[in-house]
């Protein structure tokens, strides 16, 4: 099995440690991982802003780079969902269609494809999980509080395999952090308030770290935590699972 690793543009530039952890974790689990260096962005920032007609270049590039892999793994629920829902290549329509079913967010790849049942990782800290909306309500990484349906949590399952890690409960377990792509600057006031409220919930329950499967949300919350000079840190779930 050969996996193509897609690292979202802002993760590449700002959070290389999360990308490195994703790569190392997959390698440890025996997966042959390749990171094609021509990759750029999934196109979501344009599409969610109403400019999906400008994403053709991104779609062609993504399809060209990743068409031949067995799977594509992405340490981001939001980018994964965008590809699943919208990837379309004019030049290689069949390949892009197939890619939409071959692309996996990291957590679901670990639980659903690799069927990971144990991990060698220690993280002796109190951790709050941020359920990013696109991973939650788009990819169904966990059960959604709005629905009358049995609870489950794929990130929770993986984190329960980590020694010493204590999950904290939250008052609002799946409320949006307010990042929302261009929303974070176009609607600055509400976005920042949502972020402050989300962070406060984790702090109130004694979290030392906030983790999640989407660095865009974590970047947003980190920006607020650092402005508040808080000791609480954000960490991508790959870094915990990889045993930093």
């Amino acid at each position: 099995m050969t996996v193509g690793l897609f690292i979202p543009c802002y993760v590449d530039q700002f959070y290389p440690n999360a990308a490195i952890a994703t790569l190392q974790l997959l390698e440890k689990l025996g997966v042959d991982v390749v990171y094609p260096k021509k990759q750029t962005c999934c196109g979501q920032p344009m599409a969610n802003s109403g400019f999906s007609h400008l994403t053709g270049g991104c779609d062609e590039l993504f399809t060209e780079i990743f068409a031949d892999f067995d799977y594509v793994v992405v340490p981001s629920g939001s980018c994964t969902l965008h590809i699943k829902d919208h990837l379309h290549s004019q030049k290689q329509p069949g390949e892009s269609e197939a890619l939409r079913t071959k692309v996996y967010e990291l957590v679901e790849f670990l639980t659903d494809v690799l069927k990971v049942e144990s991990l060698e990782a220690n993280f002796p800290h109190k951790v709050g999980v941020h359920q990013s909306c696109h991973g939650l309500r788009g990819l169904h990484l966990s059960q959604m509080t709005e629905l009358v349906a049995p609870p489950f949590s794929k990130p929770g399952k993986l984190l329960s395999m980590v020694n010493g890690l204590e999950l904290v409960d939250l008052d609002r377990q799946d409320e949006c952090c307010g990042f929302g792509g261009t929303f974070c600057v176009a609607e600055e006031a509400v976005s920042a308030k949502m972020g402050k409220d989300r962070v406060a919930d984790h702090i109130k329950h004694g979290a030392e770290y906030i983790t999640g499967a989407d660095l865009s949300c974590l970047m947003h919350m980190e920006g607020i935590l650092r402005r508040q000079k808080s000791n609480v840190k954000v960490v991508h779930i790959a870094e915990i699972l990889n045993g930093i």
Partner: protein
Amino acid sequence: MRDHAALSEEFNKDEARVDWHDETLWFIRQKRDRAVHSIPEWEWLRETGSQIKNNVLSNLSAYLEQFEANALKNGIHVHWAADAQEHNEIVLSIMKRHQADRMVKSKSMLTEECHLNDFLAKNGVEVIDSDLGERIVQLAKEPPSHIVLPCIHKKKEEIGDLFHEHLGTAAGEADPQVLTEAARQHLRDTFLTRKVALTGVNFAIAETGEFVVCTNEGNADMGAHLSDVHIACMGIEKIIPERKHLSVFLRLLTRSATGQPITTYSSHFMKPREGQEMHIVLVDNGRSRQLGRPDFRNSLKCIRCGSCMNTCPVYRRSGGHSYHTTIAGPIGAILAPNLDMKDHADLPFASTLCGSCSNVCPVKIDIHDQLYKWRQVLVKEGHVDSVKAAGMKAMAYTFANPSVFEVAGKSGRWFMKNFPSLVSNRLNPWYKEREMPEPPKESFREWYSKNRKKV
């Protein structure tokens, strides 16, 4: 006109008030959760409600004609209004025929949508809203901020001040029970003296020609039963095929809206009592146009429960008035562009696309997907500012060209440097309340080149 972002910024100047507003509506979301989690078949009910409404939308003209025929048989006068203006004229003509210059009106978002109160006032008709929340915003000369809870943005002390000014309660009196009693006395007189009562319609049943009005206060019943003339106004999408379908919708509506099992009053109106005249006004006002938009037609399934507002993290922190349209929140943001794209071009962007609205919707409207789709339409129709459009083109070019992207990345972490200013004219709005990420020594791709041999 100020847009949602500007109005929200204003709302957020008083953070304690934002917290209060957020928590008040979250409390209702929690009540809704408790109510629906006590019903094991809840998701089945939602699916059934959704399918019934899909059937209605696919056969709307047939059901409307069936409803009209049965209502006429029952002795109800039926009127058809193509738009708000026609609706208002019809209501006024009924008032004039009865030489009535005063009306008591129970809650009807449709009449808010048509701005009936203003129109009647200009034509010498005084309207008193009898729903307590509506009465409060009417006294405050404000529009409702929520479709189910019209004055949810007001604190009880502010309501006390209004009542002191208008209804003569003691200064500083803010006890809800005392204020409610004052409103009750004031409205009792209104009910007894108005010859014409107007109500909304929650459900109109094609099979029987009857309509159902749901209230918690019984104010619609008080108005209608004491009046000589009862006018009921409804959007054409309120139709349901058969009476038995109420067994689905009445269970869905109030659990979603307030967490109650059912409204206190779910009143069926089938025919005028002896000596009374009953009218029903069927209003299109853009609904047929929306029905003709494949991506947006199912927004017409809405039963106006307001649960999408209560769950919306943006609505809770921006207030209903920030949407500058009759129906606020996520559902309003997908309905309003149909009425006027230019005026409401900001609303589909007033969302993080978190998707909670679609999950609470009792008739399974894909609200957040429609928000996404409206964004595409609004951009194509030219309703997005040119700075943002130019920025998006630059971004698309960079991302489509790996060599350009790599150079851009190396020369100063392109993303955060460019991204905020590409979508906002204001000087880096990210930084106002957030720190920027600290650029690491090397990007992942740089690390990968050094540490892995492949590719």
